[in-house]
């Protein structure tokens, strides 16, 4: 297998949440991202955060329809990490002019990062809504929509007399979650 094919297999594994693939990417690329961050006003903690975010970008990319990176994985990782770190520096307003100049542009990842930021926002909003909704709604919705459990099993776990009762309860919870979620959505826009 050549590198490109190998990398494609790696990304496919990532999309399946294969832990071996995750670990492999860590082992091969972590040091590079760490030096990028620590050489540009960051700590090793910052580097760990950035790498984690990078992994999520990569995961989103791997799951999306256009899996093509248009460059080597290494280049892609460097470019995304750089973009993410610059974003963070700008937010914390801790960069000086020179930082930006030294961090040269290597691949066009602007769209992917923007997409990721949007998704990240949505994720946070959903998390907030989920935390606000309270029990048993939270567990109920997570069981159905996230762990993808069958309604019968859920009814048994949560002590509902039958699947239909559980279903009605789930719908009510979903309506509430939706309200909480969209309330924030409107605030943002």
């Amino acid at each position, binding site marked *: 297998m050549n590198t490109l094919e190998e990398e494609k297999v790696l990304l496919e594994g990532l999309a399946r949440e294969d832990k071996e693939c995750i*670990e492999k990417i860590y082992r091969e690329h972590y040091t590079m991202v760490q030096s990028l961050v620590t050489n540009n006003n960051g700590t*090793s903690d910052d580097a760990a955060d950035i790498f984690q975010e990078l992994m999520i970008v990569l995961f989103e990319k791997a799951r999306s329809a256009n899996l093509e990176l248009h460059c080597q994985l290494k280049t892609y990782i460097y470019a995304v990490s750089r973009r993410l770190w610059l974003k963070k520096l700008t937010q914390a307003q801790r960069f000086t002019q020179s930082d930006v100049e030294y961090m040269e542009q290597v691949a066009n990842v602007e769209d992917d990062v923007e997409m990721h930021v949007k998704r990240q926002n949505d994720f946070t909003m959903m998390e907030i809504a*989920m935390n606000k909704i309270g029990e048993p709604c939270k567990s109920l919705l997570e069981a159905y929509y996230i762990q993808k459990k069958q309604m019968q099993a859920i009814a048994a776990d949560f002590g509902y007399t039958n699947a239909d009762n559980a279903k*009605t309860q789930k719908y009510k919870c979903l*309506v509430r979650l939706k309200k909480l979620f969209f309330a924030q959505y409107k605030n943002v826009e």
Partner: protein
Amino acid sequence: MEDVLLIDAVERFVNGEMTHQEKIYFEDLRKNNPELDQAVVEQLFFLNELNNFGVTKSFKHSLHEVQNKLANEGFVFSTPVIVKAKLIQMWYKYKKTVAVAASIAGVVSLFIASVVSAVTKKDPTNTTLLVNKVEAVAVKNAQIERKLNKLEANAIAEAKKPMVESKFNGTGFLIDVNNNYIITNAHVAMEAKNQLIVENKKGDQFEAKTVYIDQLRDIAILRIKDKSFKKLSPIPFQIRKSSAFLGEQVYMLGFPKKEIVYGEGYVSARNGHNMDTLFCQLSTTASAGSSGSPVIAKNGDLIGILTSKESNTQGVIYAIKSVNILRAIEEAKKIDDNTSIKITGASVLKGLKREDQIEKMENYVFMIKGN
């Protein structure tokens, strides 16, 4: 209830659970009823969001597992970046030039230094050290109070340890739970001529010994000798290697009185009194006894040691930058008895609410006293 029906319909539509006829009927309904169509689109969008949430959450979980595994192996957090090779190359290349330049620079700086010291007047005391020296009267009061306390304690028939007559008090904090090393200011530790005691927030006292003093950086390293001192769980903060950011919010825990006191403020300048680069300047309040207090940033990093205040101005406080602690420790390690000092902090405080951070942190802050 209508909402519930709609959700049911959309979910069955998405999951392909509708019969062919139902599907045709449903799609027809959407075409003719824009309001319904809008609701369906919204519901589809929401389900998609929920699905993304679930997928990302699950991935984050896997990610954490891998990260923890690698952290345990020491792969993720502790690989310092090596850039030495390039520097050495440059050194060989420019050795001669550097030597010449250095000698010129040396001569010039000597000259300038002599001019400067001849011209400027020395102002040794524009800052006040924040160690609390108990005055004679106070000592007497304390004696009386202590006697009362003692009587009380005896009454409960629980005399633990003889209280130590203290002539000063300051603050310090633990940095190594395995060997019980404590950091405080040199000017605090040096007040102890005979006996040095550290006291935790509950009032339990432990005997300690000064193992290292760095007067230039005003840092002292103490070690708790008492066997009765119970080992604490790992240090919840990390010592930041870089400087604090201007405007960064900070808080302090110290012992200006008999109980632990919380204070907050922000970094108001990057350097200390007279542009002293060992220090940074905080805007907060502090009083005698606060010397040696840990200064913690919002994210839980330790960024300095509270040391002194500007005598003429209110609210201007100086703290030694945290990187100096690391340097002092490196120096202290060169002494035989202290080779085992190890900073074991992990950033447990990061992301916690302030109250929770304090609750964790206060176990590691001690009153330093003695005579």
